[in-house]
């Protein structure tokens, strides 16, 4: 009897405190997102997007996706902010004001996308539902076979590196192409750097 009630409670979702934290984190995220959309100062924007990443990392932790949270914190809040700051240095500090008319189309896209997302959640299985397809089918199999197949305890790593290692290979390709892309467009940094340094030295002499 108590067992059944226990499972039911688990299926019904996390308890009230977690829900409250959920709501407050999501609210903060929404506020940050709106602030990002309205701000014109690029520096503040970069900082706020870092905040946004950290908030989402927190939220991932709440959702028990620690690996994703960790990645989000390192990539979203860490390196992205640093790189965007670097990019910002090459341009102006304040974004130009949009024409109000130009905002209509993106607004429409956002509204429609949001509406479809809401629509989709109606039939989405409950959070943490062990019987949902996502949790019962392949996920179960991964959990069961992992140790026998690969022999390491972290299932996330074995899925990423072995079961779906090719995806990771592709992602490394994406990272690599990103590097190539920036180098292609901006040139090699050290060349222009040494050129400007030389100029400077020449100026001092």
């Amino acid at each position, binding site marked *: 009897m108590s067992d059944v009630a226990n499972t039911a409670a688990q299926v019904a979702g996390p308890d009230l405190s977690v829900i409250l934290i959920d709501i407050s984190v999501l609210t903060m995220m929404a506020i940050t997102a709106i602030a990002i959309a309205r701000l014109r100062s690029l520096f503040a924007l970069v900082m706020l997007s870092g905040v946004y990443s950290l908030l989402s990392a927190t939220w991932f932790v709440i959702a028990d996706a620690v690996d994703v949270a960790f990645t989000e914190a390192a990539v979203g809040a860490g390196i992205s902010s640093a790189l965007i700051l670097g990019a910002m240095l090459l341009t102006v500090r304040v974004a130009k004001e949009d024409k109000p008319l130009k905002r209509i189309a993106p607004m429409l896209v956002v509204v429609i996308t949001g509406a*479809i997302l809401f629509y989709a959640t109606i039939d989405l299985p409950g959070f943490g539902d062990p019987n949902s397809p996502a949790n019962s089918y392949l996920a179960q199999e991964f959990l069961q076979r992992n140790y026998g197949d690969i022999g390491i305890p972290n299932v996330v790593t074995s899925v990423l590196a072995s*079961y779906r290692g090719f995806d990771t290979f592709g992602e490394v*390709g*994406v990272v*690599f*192409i990103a590097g190539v*892309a920036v180098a*292609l467009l901006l040139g090699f940094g050290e060349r222009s750097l040494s050129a400007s340094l030389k100029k400077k030295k020449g100026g001092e002499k």
Partner: protein
Amino acid sequence: MLIDVLSLLPESWVRHLPVLVVLGPMLLSPICAAMPKWRIAWALALFGIITSSVFAFALLQDVMAHGRISYALGGWAPPLGIEFAADMLNAPVLVLVSVIGVLATIFAMPTIVQDINEEKRSLFLSAYLLCFAGLMGVAITGDAFNLFVFLEISSISTYVLVAIGGSRDRRAFTAAYNYLIMGSLGATFYVIGIGFLYAATGTLNMADMASRIPEVADSKTIHAGFAFIVAGLALKAAMFPLHQWLPNAYTYSPSFVTVFLSATATKVAFYALVRLLFSVFSPELEFQQVVFTWVLAPMAAVAAIACSFQAVFQTNIKRMLAYSSVAQVGYMLMGLSLASAAGLSASMFHMINHALMKGALFMAVAGVVMSLGSSQLKDFAGVARKAPWTATALGISALSLVGVPLTAGFLSKVALFQAALMQDWWWAVVVLAISSVLAVLYVGRMLETVFFKTPGPAQLQVKEAPLMLLIPLWVLALGSIYFGLDASFITSLTDGAANVAFSGGQP
């Protein structure tokens, strides 16, 4: 087929064919980036893509002989691991993309000398190889998420390939930026859609998904996932009205990039759309039929007419061809939305032909632009006199675009008409006919300028394009003629493709 490529390859390679078509370019890409001499990088790129096309041919033959071929990456049997799956639906696409790739790479030699600064050429070729590998990967993968990964690889490299044109014309940057924004939007939509499908089915393998979707077909999650996937891929395939990125991207990018993208990128995206719509979802699903009849078909009709109409008024020849591309995508979508085997076969047929003719058209234009320095239509006056070979190939391909008999474009158009009439979609025939007449207008304007206008002093300086450009150009142009006289090879492929699509991916 003329040569039995399959028997020429070592026995032990045959098993790996599905991954080999992608692997060469993908692994050569970083090596290219490290090459101090760009000519070596070019030779490597050419080598990689030639091996890809040989493997693609072999794969096609293998598929024709043995049906669907599955390759379990990492040794994990699908649906646990990622699967590469070759069947009659994607093997022709692989061959198309790789053959165009070979021709485009040859064509790259003379043009990138003009378009790209020397120290950037190695990196450029590296990005190009990854773009190519990405497109091949999209075409061959049997895993919905892996498709997204390859889509990203090809998209990101495409953005940079387009933006590289910025050193000649600053507008390329804006074009690439818009493309980046819209492309990322498309990719995001796609991945959201896949997320929903995963939530509803618990798997990412396409064949597995296909078998699990019918049970949950009424779920709103599936509907939303479907909507996101169609929107995302349609954006990549430049379906009206999500085509806004295309005209500028094609106009301002380096000519080599335009040639390659116009002949492959939208085609592969179109293939991906077909794959998802026909072998993951199924046209028998009720909501899909609604989308076909009330969304895709009307959009296709508007694209075919509106963009042809816009093409008529363009003053830049590359832009004109770009709008024409969007219109032609409309043709293909029209065939697709018929949801019949004949319609799909006609669509694929038209897709292959369009790759041939648009590739050739952009190549010929590039050949003239090389010595003319302008791609304005009025500057092309009478260039046929000084560059007869380039102009003749341009003429042939342009006629194929209109759908003049004895060219490949005619046959695929007839096939589309026929497929539409089978469903009694006479209005679609009317739409395509109007669009064809508009095509006569803009192509006629181009040909008249090129062949019959009196050249000015600038045009008299035009020289024939270099041999390295003429060879791929004429291969494509002659292809348009050959397949206009005997298309039985292509139609056997596309019929096979349609069969696969309608048997739900099973051989």
